[in-house]
């Protein structure tokens, strides 16, 4: 087993250890054992940093890939299939390394941050335990090398998100939110599961690589429509997890959870897992599937942005912006801008985490005030927070010199290239929506900055609220609330600083205008599809064209990495080329003409994208300034003027109401109907029979009792009545008995006499 594998296993298990330890012993430890969590995560981060260093910096190779697996289930010699084993394994490649580093870093920072934020909570220790299991399952998603295990960890992050959203479970809103989140994710997971099943049913394996190999070899038994379906269904998992339309409704509610959780799970890592998963299966997505993905992403980005404009809750604004940004990533994958999307995933993770932690600091300082209307002028009180927040905001808005700028523009460029490739007019909706949302993003972030940090404090405007902690000084004046709000302590400040630093362009690329020149895009080249034109070309040609994914000597058993590396490098001319001649290299790599053209055109569209998006961003910020700083336009007045639109946005396009009315009400109704059916129809023969038979007045009164007692269905009723009728023959008069017998004899006689004569 390669040392990196061992290390990544350690990375995977340490947080689990922290969970197990804390869940059982947190009450027995000093400080409820938070140091255990922080320490473990620190260690985890250290190891992943080392992995990152070795993988990305040392072998600087796009095709780097390590794999190790073991037989988890053994079905023996299955009739019709042959020996069948289900394997579990780990894969370490560039993407994994980067994700590991990112996840562990943010998780570590959040742990640290929480020591300040959650201090004094009743279940302080349990909180760290939950964070531990979340980190564990998230790392599992990152590391796993097959669909089955990723599904397992997929649900486990769902669980930990469930636990953490409902951490304040005594609040009904929190309990509702956690249930909603879990169920919404379950719906997505069903799709994902069906997708997995489609693939398994064809290949009897879960492993990515084997599936890709089979696909590349054109062994997919069902029609192409099934393959598209598989892609879309797998994407449903992402729709659930990454809160894409139509399953986005859970994420804003998830803000009921503690803010560090929002930062870690619902901004940086878990919600990005959906994107990560789609990236993992990117190569098997057919063009049709990609179209669906692209449109859903674009629509989500736009819709969420419009909603974010009107929200009052500081965290909700960020939540919707998260949805919107995830929409971008999905859009990016949909249009084939693979690297760009993943790039945006990482950059977004950092600056959005920064924003959430910042807002957390504000909320903490404001004594759990979340409504932006009652904030304002905080820049004086909280300089550190202010600065980091602004940096992250710029990155989110996508201003030059920030990381967000590079990644977003790469995506938009990709979308342009995509639209041009596909040709017909409606594909242009994708880039249009993308650019428009860029403007909206800039606008609502500008609004938020202004409402929170600039102007005068509006705390005193807040109507008195006995329940709020700071209700004591609701109405007293300026000074009063000023020494109410202070900058937060170092353990909450440090994460802000680190994350803000990571939102600057230089970390990723020397050229502030082009991420393509950066190490990231080079290390994460767009893999060649295995389904596009694959049926045209020869299997092994396709296999070769698949780039890193299938390029291993002995795919099945775990093996020595060096060998793998030797086996790989020669097989990737394009990889080498890419290193040599920068971004242009990629386009030659693709066997699939469509993919090649997209790559080409999107590169061509690069500059246009920059120009348009910069204009959009400037427009957005300008609008924000006009509205909130110079007050040329009165926001409330405008809101009145366009009330329907305002309401639509303010009420989140009414999705919650719609779902409530249709699905939830619907299933409740069905449930009611079914159980009624169960009680009254299927089982109800009994009672129905009882009522029926009461009409037979000449039965003895105990009939009900007997019937309802023992009789199970209609035969019971029949048996009983027939009994009731037959017994009437028993008159008690002996002569009738005799007559009966004689009649019987006579009857027989007549019967056979008739037979004889005939």
């Amino acid at each position: 087993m390669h040392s990196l594998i061992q290390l990544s296993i350690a990375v995977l298990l340490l947080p689990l250890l922290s969970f197990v330890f804390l869940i059982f012993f947190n009450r027995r430890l000093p400080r409820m054992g938070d140091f255990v969590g922080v320490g473990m995560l620190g260690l985890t981060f250290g190891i992943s940093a080392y992995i990152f260093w070795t993988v990305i910096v040392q072998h600087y190779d796009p095709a780097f890939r390590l794999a190790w697996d073991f037989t988890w289930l053994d079905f023996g010699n299955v009739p019709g299939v042959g020996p069948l084993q289900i394997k579990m394994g780990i894969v370490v490649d560039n993407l994994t390394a980067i994700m590991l580093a990112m996840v562990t870093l943010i998780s570590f920072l959040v742990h640290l941050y929480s020591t300040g934020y959650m201090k004094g909570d009743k279940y302080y220790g349990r909180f760290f335990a939950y964070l531990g299991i979340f980190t564990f399952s998230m790392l599992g998603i990152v590391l796993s090398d097959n669909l089955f295990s990723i599904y397992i960890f997929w649900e486990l992050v769902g669980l930990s998100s469930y636990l953490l959203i409902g951490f304040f479970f005594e609040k009904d809103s929190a309990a509702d939110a956690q249930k909603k989140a879990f169920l919404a994710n379950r719906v997505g997971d069903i799709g994902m599961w069906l997708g997995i099943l489609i693939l398994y049913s064809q290949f009897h394996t879960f492993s990515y690589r084997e599936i890709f190999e089979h696909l590349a070899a054109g062994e997919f038994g069902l029609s192409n429509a099934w393959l598209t379906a598989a892609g879309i269904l797998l994407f449903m998992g992402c729709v659930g997890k990454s809160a894409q339309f139509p399953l986005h409704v859970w994420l804003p509610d998830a803000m009921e959870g503690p803010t560090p959780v929002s930062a870690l799970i619902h901004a940086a890592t878990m919600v990005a897992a959906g994107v990560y998963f789609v990236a993992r299966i990117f190569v098997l997505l057919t063009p049709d599937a990609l179209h669906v993905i692209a449109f859903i992403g674009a629509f989500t980005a736009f819709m969420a942005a419009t909603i974010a404009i009107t929200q009052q809750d500081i965290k909700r604004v960020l939540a919707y912006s998260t949805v919107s940004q995830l929409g971008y990533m999905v859009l990016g994958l949909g249009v084939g801008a693979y690297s760009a999307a993943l790039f945006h995933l990482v950059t977004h993770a950092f600056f959005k985490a920064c924003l959430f932690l910042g807002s957390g600091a504000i909320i903490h300082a404001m004594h759990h005030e979340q409504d932006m209307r009652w904030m304002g002028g905080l820049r004086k009180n909280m300089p550190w927070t202010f600065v980091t927040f602004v940096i992250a905001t710029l990155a989110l808005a996508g201003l030059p010199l920030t990381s967000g700028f590079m990644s977003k523009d790469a995506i938009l460029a990709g979308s342009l290239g995509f639209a041009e490739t596909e040709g017909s007019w409606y594909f242009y909706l994708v880039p249009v929506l993308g650019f428009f949302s860029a403007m909206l993003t800039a606008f609502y972030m500008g609004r938020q900055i202004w409402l929170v940090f600039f102007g005068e404090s509006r705390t005193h405007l807040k109507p008195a609220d006995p329940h709020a902690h700071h209700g004591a000084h609701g109405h007293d004046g300026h000074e009063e609330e000023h020494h109410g709000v202070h900058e937060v302590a170092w353990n909450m400040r440090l994460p802000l600083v680190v994350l803000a630093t990571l939102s600057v362009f230089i970390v990723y690329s020397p050229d502030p205008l082009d991420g393509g020149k950066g190490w990231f895009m080079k290390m994460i080249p767009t893999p060649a599809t295995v389904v596009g034109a694959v049926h045209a070309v020869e299997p092994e040609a396709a296999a070769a064209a698949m780039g890193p994914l299938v390029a291993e000597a002995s795919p099945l058993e775990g093996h020595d990495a060096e060998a793998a590396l030797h086996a790989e490098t020669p097989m990737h001319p394009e990889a080498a080329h890419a290193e040599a001649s920068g971004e242009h290299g990629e386009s030659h790599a693709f066997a699939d003409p469509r993919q090649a053209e997209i790559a080409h055109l999107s590169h061509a569209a690069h500059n246009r994208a920059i120009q348009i998006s910069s204009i959009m961003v400037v427009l957005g910020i300008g609008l924000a300034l006009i509205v909130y700083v110079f007050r040329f336009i009165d926001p409330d007045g405008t809101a009145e003027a366009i009330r329907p639109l305002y309401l639509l946005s303010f009420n989140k396009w009414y999705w919650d109401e719609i779902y409530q009315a249709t699905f939830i009400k619907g299933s409740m109704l069905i449930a009611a109907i079914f159980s009624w059916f169960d009680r009254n129809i299927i089982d109800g023969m009994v009672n129905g029979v009882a009522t029926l038979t009461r009409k037979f007045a000449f039965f003895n009164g105990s009939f009900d009792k007997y019937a309802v007692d023992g009789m199970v269905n209609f035969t019971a009723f029949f048996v009983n009545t027939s009994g009731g009728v037959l017994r009437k023959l028993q008159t008690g008069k002996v002569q009738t008995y005799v007559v009966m017998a004689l009649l019987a004899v006579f009857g027989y006689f007549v019967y056979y006499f008739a037979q004889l004569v005939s």
Partner: protein
Amino acid sequence: MLSLIVFLPVIAGLVILAVPSSQKQIIRIVSLLAAVAQMVLAVMIWRAYDPSMAGITAAAGGSPEGSFQFIERLPWITLDLGSMGSMNIEYFLGVDGLSITMVILTALVSTIGVLSSWTIQKQVKGYFLLYNLLATAMMGCFVALDFFLFYVFWELMLLPMYFLIGMWGGPNREYAAIKFFLYTLFGSVFMLLVMIALYFSVLDPLTGNHTFSLVAMADQANYVKDSILGPDNTMWRYVAFIVLFVGFAIKVPMFPFHTWLPDAHVEAPTPISVILAGVLLKLGTYGMMRINFPLFPEVFQASLYVIGVLGAINIIYGAFCALAQKDLKKMVAYSSISHMGYVLLGLAAANSEGMTGALYQMFNHGTITAMLFLLVGVIYDRAHTRQIEKFGGLASYMPVYAGVVMIAWFASLGLPGLSGFISEAFVFVGAFSAEVTRPIAMVSVLGIVFGAAYLLWSLQRMFLGKRREDAAYDLEIGEDGHEHIHFHDWKGKLDLDGRELAMLVPLAVIVIFLGIYPMPIMGLMTTSINKLVQVLSPVAMATLN
């Protein structure tokens, strides 16, 4: 060995018979000892079991040795029936991959059941007598390889169950008990006819006599050409299959024969619910795998779609009914209807993944549902009500209980990392891989969502949030300033006490362990399942004719 594990409880029962009924503690301890001994034996059998032997049918040459293990085969009844040769009934026990898992499950659950019977106060002696009789009957059903013997054990279960529900049950127990009795008897009497018909249709290849041996019956080559259930007598073979299927389906219980279950569960005392859901339901599906399908493979192949659809109905219908329940125990009862639907679906897949999933699901459902009912019992003991809306916010006041409930509930809704997930997953894998059941599988996945829905909803209503106004317990501020609750007339420990933990923790450990690494149980069954699938496959039948 097997005889011992089967008849231990009866021996215990005889001992109890000698104990004066005033000595409740002794009676309990005796039964517990018997159950534990059974457990130990089960583990020994498990350790000594060789997973590479297939079972299902006889080994080459028609002798069960080399195919089954721990065989005990004695001539029991040998009658000369003149024109029809001699009637041979054998005392024929043995285990293969199908039974061994169920044997372990039975031993486990009946031990738990004894522990949970500790609270029974009324007529302890009679109770444990019947309980031990029941335990013997259940274990016997799983290890019997002679149809006659199987039938005897099968019917032997009814009477104790009738009295256990009827005498120690809830207010409406008479109804529930007689309903259970009539329903299940209705199912099994037809089995008697089929059994006799099979007897006249099958010849034991070794002795050349008619036989009740299930091993001989499982091999289509042993059927007499022009007998009533002979290979060419299609009509009667279909009839027999359907009759058997209905008989077993009633036990499962399969829609629309399920209505006895909610009543029986709601009325039965906790330990009996545990036994009922934990083991008895499994007998239905076990019977299908052991008897119904291998004996009539071609009919089975012909009716895959129907079975699958019925399974899907069970899954979804049960889930919806559970969603609508107000009584916690009734909800759990419907949930087990829903979960047994997965088993049916997996069987309908008729491939290794599906069947393994089904059998594994039987085991997991046994442990998980046992936990669920025990937990319901815990809260019922305290609050004397099971109405969900009578609770709320319990998580703050009974953290340990809430924790265990979390494990059980999530295991039941199929959360990965807990055993329920793996079995359901492979049921779906199998069902989807099979052409016939693919559309059914695509529909039944909805069950996953609604399963999550009713479980999470009940979880929220009972444990999260704050105490309701009309809750079944009072709130008070303890001396330490924290809030506490206390139930009316409940003297014991508020949170789980030692006995309850002793029942629940082992189950929880098993559920978690088998969720992470299923091979210890799954490894036992794979060979037999593959053999079964191979026996059932159309290929095998083609080679036969």
